[in-house]
């Protein structure tokens, strides 16, 4: 429970936050804190400076463009997303957010934090890969965008580098999405999960099977095609107390089929 000493800043603007992050090597953004504070309790991570993003309203917006493109600020919480009329344009987002952990965690945890922490068991990294989100990353030097599929680099490692912030996520229009998971108890941590999106071609992203979501593109949503695509991915998931590698490979296939089916059946 007891954190190492840390300095704290609550910037008033994104620019200020970026400046602090740039000035201090050991600075880290603090979003919902639902992961970061816990790793600090365990003293697994000990940033020198916490840059609290909670005061930055610029990062909280959820907007629906005229073309159906959804833009979600990195600091939008799961509760914000689940309750947002705009976000309903892509219903799967709110639906999945509502199955993450519990009310308290959903009230604080943010979409930005979820993808930036990139815990392989998190719900949103595979989902955002499947729906083809783009991440906007800002630094004092300017902004860049990275496709979700390129955003995730390793466990707790993403394209957001030192001195940078994820500011928003952009999600194209679409409705034919699915998500399936086997979790530790109802609405619990994922043992394996899969997200699918069939808007044009089918894209399936598999979670919990590697350090980053594994994206496959089956030829169709037919069961055989999906299974074949998953098999073709040559998964080598880790074994842990909840699942053997073999079991995860199997689950990935079954869940991919289910997510794809849900995407296909969705009107």
């Amino acid at each position, binding site marked *: *429970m*007891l*954190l*190492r*000493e840390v300095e704290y800043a609550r910037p008033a603007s994104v620019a200020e936050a970026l400046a602090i992050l740039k000035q201090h090597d050991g600075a880290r953004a603090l979003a919902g804190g639902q992961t970061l504070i816990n790793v600090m309790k*365990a*003293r697994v991570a000990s940033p020198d400076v916490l840059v609290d993003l909670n005061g930055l309203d610029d990062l909280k917006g959820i907007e629906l463009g005229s073309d159906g493109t959804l833009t979600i600020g990195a600091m939008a919480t799961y509760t914000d997303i689940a309750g947002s009329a705009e976000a309903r344009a892509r219903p799967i987002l709110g639906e999945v957010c509502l199955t993450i952990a*519990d009310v308290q965690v959903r009230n604080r945890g943010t979409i930005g934090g979820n993808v930036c922490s990139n815990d392989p068991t998190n719900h949103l990294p595979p989902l955002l890969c499947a729906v083809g989100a783009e991440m906007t990353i800002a630094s004092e030097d300017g902004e860049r965008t990275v496709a979700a599929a390129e955003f995730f680099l390793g466990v707790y490692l993403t394209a957001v580098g030192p001195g940078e912030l994820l500011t928003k996520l952009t999600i194209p229009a679409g409705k034919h999405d699915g998500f399936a998971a*086997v979790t*530790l*108890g*109802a*609405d*619990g*941590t994922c*043992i394996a999960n899969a997200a699918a999106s069939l808007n044009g071609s089918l894209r399936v992203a598999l979670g919990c099977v590697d350090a980053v979501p594994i994206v496959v593109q089956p030829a169709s949503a037919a069961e055989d095609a999906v299974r074949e695509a998953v098999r073709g991915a040559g998964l080598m998931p880790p074994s*842990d*107390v*909840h*699942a*053997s590698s073999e*079991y995860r490979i*199997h*689950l990935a296939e*079954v*869940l991919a089929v289910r997510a794809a089916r849900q995407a296909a059946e969705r009107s």
Partner: protein
Amino acid sequence: MSDSTTIAPDRVEVQAPQKQWQGQSVPRKEDKRLTQGQGVFVDDIKRHGMGYIHFVRSPYAHAHITSIDVSKAEEIKGVYGTLTGEEVASLTDPFFQLATPPGAHLKDYALALGKVRYVGEAVVAVVAETRELARDASELVEVEYEPLAAVVDARNAQDDGVPVLHDDAGSNMMWESVYEWGDLDAAFAEADRIVKIKELHFHRFNSTPLECDGALVEFNRGTGQWTIHTNNQFPGFAQIMMGPALHCGLDKLRFVTQDIGGGFGNKITSHPQLVACCLLARKLNRPVQWTEWRTDFHLSMSHGNERWFQDTEVAVKNDGTLLGFRTKALDDAGAWLRYEPLGGVIWAQVTPGVYKWRNIRLEFTQVATNKAPCSPNRGYSRMQHLWFTERVIDIVAHELELDPVEVRKRNYIKTEDMPYETPNGCIYDSGDYSRMLDIALELIGWKDAAARKKEAASRGKLLGIGIGSTLDSGTNNFGQSRMINPELQFSGNNEVATVKLDVFGEIVVTLGTTPQGQGHETTAAQVVADILGCSMDDVYVRAGHDSYWNSHAGFSGTYASQFAVTGLSAVKGATDMLAEQIKRLGSVILGGVPVDALELADGTVRIKDNPEAALPFMACGAIINANNAGLPEDLDVTLNCRYVYRPPFEVPDVEKKFGNLTLTYAAQIHAAVVEIDPETGHYEIVDYAAVDDCGIRIHPQIVEGQVMGATAQALGAVVHEAFEYDEDGNLLTPNFYDYHVPHALDMPPLQTGYIESPSPFTPLGTKGMGEGGGAGIHSVCAAVQDAMRGHGDAIVYDSWNPYKRVWEMLQHPEKTRALVEVVDA
């Protein structure tokens, strides 16, 4: 057959006083403070100038400690001091061991000495001005280790070349004994079939009370006394362990507790940490405070006994009549014997389970491994054994293609045979298992099973129904410890209560127990109010426990399903004494009316035939305590009564391992319905029924609450909860993230039922209860096995069945089927 017979306790006339309060679900006295956040839990207690303790813990499962350097930590401003194993060894004796050799040779101290034996073992304690600082400083403690290979599988702990945890013991075998009753050869000769089960495994978990352990310890230099504010749930045991170690009399160890955030047996063995606290309070001359965090708890506190049952053979008739069994129980005690090897005998309280098995042989071996020490956990040691007997029943039924309900009914001990003497001399006091099963089957809709299976199959699901029975043996005869070690001078049991009438007529009750949610203040008040003929609101039961209250006996505490017997009998005894004294006083004051012409009612003592002639309790209290001049010299009345209830026990026959080991036997019959998704192994418990019989229920709602809570714990344990280690001895489930306990959304619909078979052996007809939840594990195991019937026919061989295992069993049923063989006798 054994020729000796246990002497059944005398039947106690179950008294039915005007039961205005008993039997009612009255509001709990505890609730008002607890719902307002006004409880006082150990971590809420603060003292001026107190120091916070942080334990430096071993990162290795097994290693020599080659050096410890605390100097850098001690240099930090705000650090008050440290404590190492060497210092502990110079100041204390090792804890007294219950085992005979080789376990007897263990040298167990408050901190690791020379060696660490599990990940999380406390090596050094650091005390500082703040919690954070204590932890900061502990990072500066330099400990060098020389790692050794870890022993993590009890099954090879005794192999050649396997490292030995305790050189003093010479091997990893800690304690062993052979139990045999009846005539095994005859039973196997009589059998039509022998069902052989190679191996069954009961897994390691515990009840993970939401509050972890803790203490605030003060040392009084002038009197040499420690005041230990702690949530330890069995101060009597802690004192007996700590006194000799600290070279002090037991009265120097004052235990104080108010509210405890759940215990379930897991808070019995905190004595090593408490000794460290005592030493530090004395050394640093200031109060010290220890908070155990969740990860610390999972790594180091009171794991439930992990047990293997190997080479089991069951003698059965073709009609399912069970004649006897042989098995080898291999118990994994973890790194130290903190309460062990008592688990090596506690199971024998329920030797045949609820069945008429007369011929039983069990070879018990307990080994040490590089895992956290085991200690009691709700259902302690009986749960393991009862899971085994229930597994045997279902495996026998399935292999012989018999109906598990029929097999149970055929073999249940019958209500007309109660009190029933088991092959090892335990006396089951009362009960009706068949009737309970009928109720459970009715609640769960057993007769519709076939239709439900079909309906589930149409949705692609495998549905299974299973039954689980447990006995909650309550009120230990500590004489059974002599079967572990004949030298031990323990037997019987006791509990204390005091009841007094104070100056202004307040009725004040103190208990020797340390409740953790069981509502003792309420049930004690119910008993007192009925006897004294007053309102429950007029009865003040002091919250918690303080060994200074003089309501404290050798076995005081709250553990092992006994309050309704020992605690309430003590309350009853003390209150009966007080009632009698009030009447004697009344007799004098009311002008010499005979005592039997008086009654207690409406908070007065009055003449039965003339209720107007009444003396209020307030007057009684005032007269004796503050206005007593002129009372007759021979009026021996204090209105302050202390009673020690001593259950009727004999010392068991240690040679024959025979005797009555517990006074009461509450029973639980549960039934579960599960639905498995065969594609993933994921399953849900979709229906659940729990039927309980704990004799007379003083407070039905509290009793039902215990049933529910125990059930929930079992459902968590069978599906999710396990203390799993990797081969290096790292705990893989050190927190609630990976150790998934049931949450709100995990709870199945529950139906409860009950019958009341009064115990003929207890003053109130009550039975101890609260630990019967193991039935949930048994019934879910049975249901999972049932669901897989016709789908590979896998055998459920483990008490932990996470989705991955169920999937495995569906993929490779043959691996599990290889564990079982049926041969014609």
